[in-house]
């Protein structure tokens, strides 16, 4: 599929899976109108009795997912923005992530939670722009995926639906209407496998989501200056494909981690710690992280720009490492 939005690509994946397996259903606010980014466009008519608009009740929506997944259905839960999910933290942390282990393996939770995250750079402000993945990467029992390309969005959605674990599928808000290409048909990207989006030799930039696109753009700029940066797109945030990260650092000897989420206690800290523990011999320079400032995301465009992890900022940080 060429020149389609990320929302449409995700729609294609869900559509294929819903045709294949009648245990898959969608529940969430406003899903009957097709979802905010056309992820379910036409489904209300095509799959009658499988698309459920809900009240504004995130706890109830996630509970719907919990109970039905425990009963071997395969819910797709639409959470709107990741920020909105916070009210239902208990359902994710204490219930979904724990059931399989606590109950001695007797109950599985094959559910996908779709949540849009990240800044759109048009003033959505503090409660509608956050990247909160670190909270969920800190949680044994769920998996977290965050595609940055159209192809990965399709492939990871299919994998997420087929996985028998609770999966938080993070949809990058500012890319959901961007146009791109994805393979037709059944295209699967495995969960837990990072991707080298751009090969290089001088330093490794580890990133994910929309900031990974900024990193690729930064790498292209740097290339013109004779600096060859390798960009590793994690794609899955939990479990981290640490082997790919370490392999890259072994090759380049320098590591820059760039993410939009607040830098303090962000996922970059985990990656930095892992590389410091196991890749110390490979490093020729201290590891550098470039993450969100320790403040709520501001409304003012000037301040938003100041907050934003842009290709320019990534390129600048990279230059300072060489």
């Amino acid at each position: 599929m060429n020149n389609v939005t990320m929302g449409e690509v995700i729609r294609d994946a869900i559509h294929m899976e819903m045709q294949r397996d009648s245990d898959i259903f969608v529940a969430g606010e406003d899903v009957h109108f097709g979802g905010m980014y056309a992820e379910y466009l036409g489904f209300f008519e095509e799959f009658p009795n499988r698309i459920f608009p809900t009240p504004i009740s995130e706890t109830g929506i996630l509970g719907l997912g919990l109970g039905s997944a425990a009963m071997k259905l395969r819910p797709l839960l639409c959470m709107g923005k990741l920020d909105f999910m916070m009210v239902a933290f208990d359902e994710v942390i204490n219930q979904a992530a724990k059931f399989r282990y606590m109950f001695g393996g007797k109950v599985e939770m094959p559910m996908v939670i779709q949540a849009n995250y990240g800044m759109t750079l048009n003033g959505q402000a503090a409660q509608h722009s956050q990247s909160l993945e670190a909270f969920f990467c800190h949680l044994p029992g769920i998996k977290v995926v965050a595609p940055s390309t159209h192809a990965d969005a399709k492939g990871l959605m299919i994998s997420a639906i087929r996985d028998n674990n609770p999966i938080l599928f993070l949809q990058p808000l500012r890319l959901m209407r961007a146009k791109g290409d994805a393979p037709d048909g059944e295209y699967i990207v495995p969960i837990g496998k990072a991707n080298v989006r751009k090969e290089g030799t001088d330093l490794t930039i580890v990133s994910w989501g929309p900031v990974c696109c900024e990193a690729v753009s930064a790498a292209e700029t740097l290339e013109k200056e004779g600096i060859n940066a390798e960009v590793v797109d994690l794609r899955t945030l939990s479990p981290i494909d640490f082997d790919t990260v370490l392999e890259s650092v072994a090759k380049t000897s320098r590591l820059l981690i760039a993410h939009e989420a607040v830098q303090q206690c962000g996922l970059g800290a985990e990656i930095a710690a892992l590389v410091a523990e196991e890749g110390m011999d490979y490093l020729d320079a201290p590891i550098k992280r470039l993450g969100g400032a320790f403040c709520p995301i501001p409304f003012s465009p000037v301040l938003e720009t100041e907050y934003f992890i842009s290709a320019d900022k990534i390129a600048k940080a990279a230059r300072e490492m060489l």
Partner: protein
Amino acid sequence: MKMNNDVLPGMYEMMFRIRTFEMKARELFLAGQLPGFLHLYAGQEAIATGVCTHLRDDDQIVSTHRGHGHLIAKGGRTDKMMAELYAKNTGYCHGKGGSMHIADPDIGILGATGIVGAGMPIGLGAAFAMKYRGQDNVTVVFFGDGGSNRGTVHEAMNMSALYNLPLIFVCENNGVGFSTVQKLHQKIEDISVRAAGYGFEGFTADGNDALEVYEVTGRAIEKARNGGGPTLLEFKTWRILGHTLGDKELYRTAEEKAEWAKKDPIPRLSKHMLENGIANQAEVDRIEQKIIKEIDDAVQFAIESPVPDASELMVGVYAD
């Protein structure tokens, strides 16, 4: 629903089983045999039994931190439960869950959860699945007066009414949430009034009368099976022991305890059976002896079972 006396001896046996199990657990815990802590169900047996006697294996219950009674009444095996309390490998959860997290979906125990009020959204999901599949099963979710104030209840009640789900909300109002008596945590007295706010019916009944619980529940379950949607059942009861063992129960008076002791559901049911010729004393004694032996055997089984190997720590976090 006409009371079928044939079920009564079975109900008596079940209630006596729950009480014996709980009092034995108490004894073992106070003797330092069990890790963790226990929230014992003693005193509320008529509710679990009166409700679960109606349920099939593939009807589901969602239980609470005070859930041994529900689990046993739904068909949970006392030996595997005891082994779980002992944190042994042969327990329901291989020692990984403990008292508050026992599950066996094969006999319709979707799980017990230690977060007060968390069961409601889960029960909502289970009932949703039953309707999605066009089954005539029901889901029962238990909670207390303490749990009734959580937002989870509000959302689950609204959504179950909206989707017309076969979900029975069973509120065991024992008058207290840990140490906070009802009038310190809610303005209303009868929790059943809240159902009207969501568009379905609520009933209040005597939770220490096994027959009343059985009859009231039977009507709600039949309604749900026939597509009539959710019902809220509030059963007034009393937990004989503290919130956990070690709770000094300073929030209770001796008079209250004495009053409620007179309404103990177990002697009440045996008295009813004897007075109405449904069972004789010899039969009652036989039931009790059988149960006492069953619980002693369960303890023996637990004691003799192995603990999990340390290598089990990381097993079961994720599905394959």
